[in-house]
């Protein structure tokens, strides 16, 4: 294989040209995605206007970089879990994984699904063009698969575009914990499609703890059928520039989507949490609470859009973005949007931005707790409350470990 010298959009297209004959799955779809990516480019990195969906986030630094797809993985340390699926640089690592019922590799059974937007979303186009592998996980009707860990590790100088597909049959249950990390400068650009059938419950807990020089651009498309629940929580803690983009389609009556998250940033980190919830059926419920703790010159973004289709009566939608700014140079941007075409609807959104509460701080200090320690207690409390939506003990424990490590890093 020739070394790729082009950077940015051209670099990715050159890689596609070099690999196209060997990529699994529908080649017509990939060619269309490549055309779309050529036109769309990396948001902020190409000339022309940035799309509104990328208002606060530019991938300009990616424009000057080139990545290979070579797996030069170092030894990977993965948390001990009975059921785990491990990827390194976008490829399945059988040596680190355990057998998981209902699991198949995208490399062997490519499934591009039907929910994604390779024509409109540049990162989905890029993923569709270059995806080599991914997790295809199917939970049959009525089965409770328990807890499954999905790990991805990035390696310096590489880009990975894993393509995941999660399907839950009627009444099925799964707690899927995704963890991503890595070392050096790399791009992790996963696209995940999720189908939750009638009455099924998917708990999807994600910790993004990429290297602080890395780029993480994750796009999730979830469809929830009648009475089903998609309960997701994302912890963004790593990465230089990261974006979590979730599209949730409430497709059947009484469907529920929780898109919660917490972003803990420092230095010059930038994390963008963007969600689009589409209520397409009556009596759906969507809940989103995002908490940001921002230190240094970091920047947090929350863009939340709730769309209520005609006929989606009895919709109940709520979103809240809360930010704690620990430094005068930190920044939070919030853009809530409601687009409502039904009349019997309860939708609300809110945002709070603040420093620590002066009364709470005084209360702690009046009990003899030194100022610095008192501040630390209040920040930890804000974080702990942020994790409250996660009730699975294993997932919660892993999240708490990640938060504790982050906070120790701040104190050092």
């Amino acid at each position, binding site marked *: 294989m020739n070394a790729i010298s082009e950077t940015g959009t051209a670099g990715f297209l050159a890689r596609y040209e070099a690999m196209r004959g060997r990529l699994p799955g529908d080649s017509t779809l990939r060619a269309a995605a490549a055309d779309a990516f050529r036109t769309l480019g990396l948001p902020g990195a190409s000339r022309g206007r940035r799309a509104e969906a990328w208002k606060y986030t530019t991938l300009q630094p990616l424009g000057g970089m080139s990545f290979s797809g070579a797996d030069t993985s170092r030894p990977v340390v993965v948390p001990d879990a009975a059921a785990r699926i491990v990827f390194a640089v976008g490829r399945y690592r059988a040596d680190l994984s355990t057998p998981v019922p209902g699991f198949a590799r995208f490399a062997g059974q490519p499934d591009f699904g039907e929910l994604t937007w390779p024509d409109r979303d540049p990162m989905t186009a890029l993923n569709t063009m270059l995806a080599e592998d991914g997790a295809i996980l199917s939970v049959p009707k009525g089965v409770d698969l328990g807890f499954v860990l999905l790990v991805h590790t990035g390696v310096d100088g590489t880009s990975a575009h894993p393509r995941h597909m999660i399907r839950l049959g009627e009444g099925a249950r799964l707690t899927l914990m995704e963890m991503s990390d890595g070392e050096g400068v790399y791009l992790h650009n996963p696209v995940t499609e999720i189908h939750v059938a009638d009455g099924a419950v998917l708990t999807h807990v994600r910790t993004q703890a990429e290297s602080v020089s890395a780029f993480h651009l994750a796009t999730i498309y979830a469809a929830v059928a009648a009475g089903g629940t998609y309960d997701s929580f994302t912890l963004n803690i790593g990465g230089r520039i990261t974006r979590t983009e979730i599209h949730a389609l409430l497709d059947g009556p009484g469907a529920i989507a929780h898109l919660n998250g917490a972003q803990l940033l420092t230095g010059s980190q930038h994390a963008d949490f963007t969600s689009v919830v589409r209520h397409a059926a009556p009596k759906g419920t969507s809940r989103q609470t995002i908490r940001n703790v921002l230190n240094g010159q970091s920047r947090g973004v929350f863009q939340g859009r709730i769309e209520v289709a005609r006929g989606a009566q009895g919709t109940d939608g709520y979103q809240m973005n809360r930010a704690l700014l620990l430094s005068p140079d930190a920044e939070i941007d919030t853009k809530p949007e409601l687009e409502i075409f039904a009349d019997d609807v309860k939708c609300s959104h809110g945002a709070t931005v603040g420093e620590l509460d*002066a*009364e*709470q701080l*005084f*209360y*702690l*200090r*009046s*009990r*003899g*707790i*030194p*100022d610095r*320690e*008192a501040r630390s*207690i*209040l920040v*930890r*409390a*804000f*974080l*702990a*409350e942020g994790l409250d939506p996660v009730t699975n003990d294993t997932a919660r424990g892993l999240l708490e470990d990640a938060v504790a490590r982050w906070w120790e890093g701040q104190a050092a």
Partner: protein
Amino acid sequence: MLDIHGLTASIGDKPILKGIDLSVPAGEIHAIMGPNGSGKSTLGYVLAGREDYTVTGGTVTFEGHDMLTMEPEARAAAGLFLAFQAPIELPGVNNANFIRTALNAIRRSRGESELDAVQFLKLARAELKRLAMPDDMLKRNVNVGFSGGEKKRNEVLQMALLRPRFAVLDETDSGLDIDALKIVADGVNALRGPEFSALVITHHQRLLDHLVPNRVHVLAGGRIVRSGGPELAKELEKNGYGAMLAEAA
């Protein structure tokens, strides 16, 4: 133990305390009574070091130290405790951890060893039992979802565990039923001794039946207008502030 001379304080441009003179000797309990808006709570906050009040004049010495230059945590370490009129809720902060952190901070500042979780729980459970409070008070987040009475009891629990040398109780009795009132009084009485003093801010004679003060002071318009023995509280209960204030003016 505590000596206040000519203390004036304001919030923003508004003067609240207009020259307080008050001495509380070691081993004594003094009550402060007075109508709403007279500056009673401000006095408590100023003593504890709350930053939104500006001290514009006067001195406060605590066991010979100039207290006004000390940070709130240093005042607590020196042995001052303010029981808040409206205790603050701390969502996400476990009550046991909160009190243990405070106790250990104070012990550290005194050069004493810190208590681990087991040692602390043993101590805390004993106090809970003595104060007839339920164990689950320690497991909950600080004051979150507590009733008014529970919040006040939690202040008393903190006081009992932190063992201050000087306690300021800001209307800790208001809104309490008679049983809860007795718990508050028992909490203070348990600390009573030659090395403990307290300033009890209250509206009612009721608490003073259980917690008999050495002196009673009447605060009005930012000044102490009258001081006397325990009988002064009874006189106020009978005649109200009106007659006394008219007399003082």
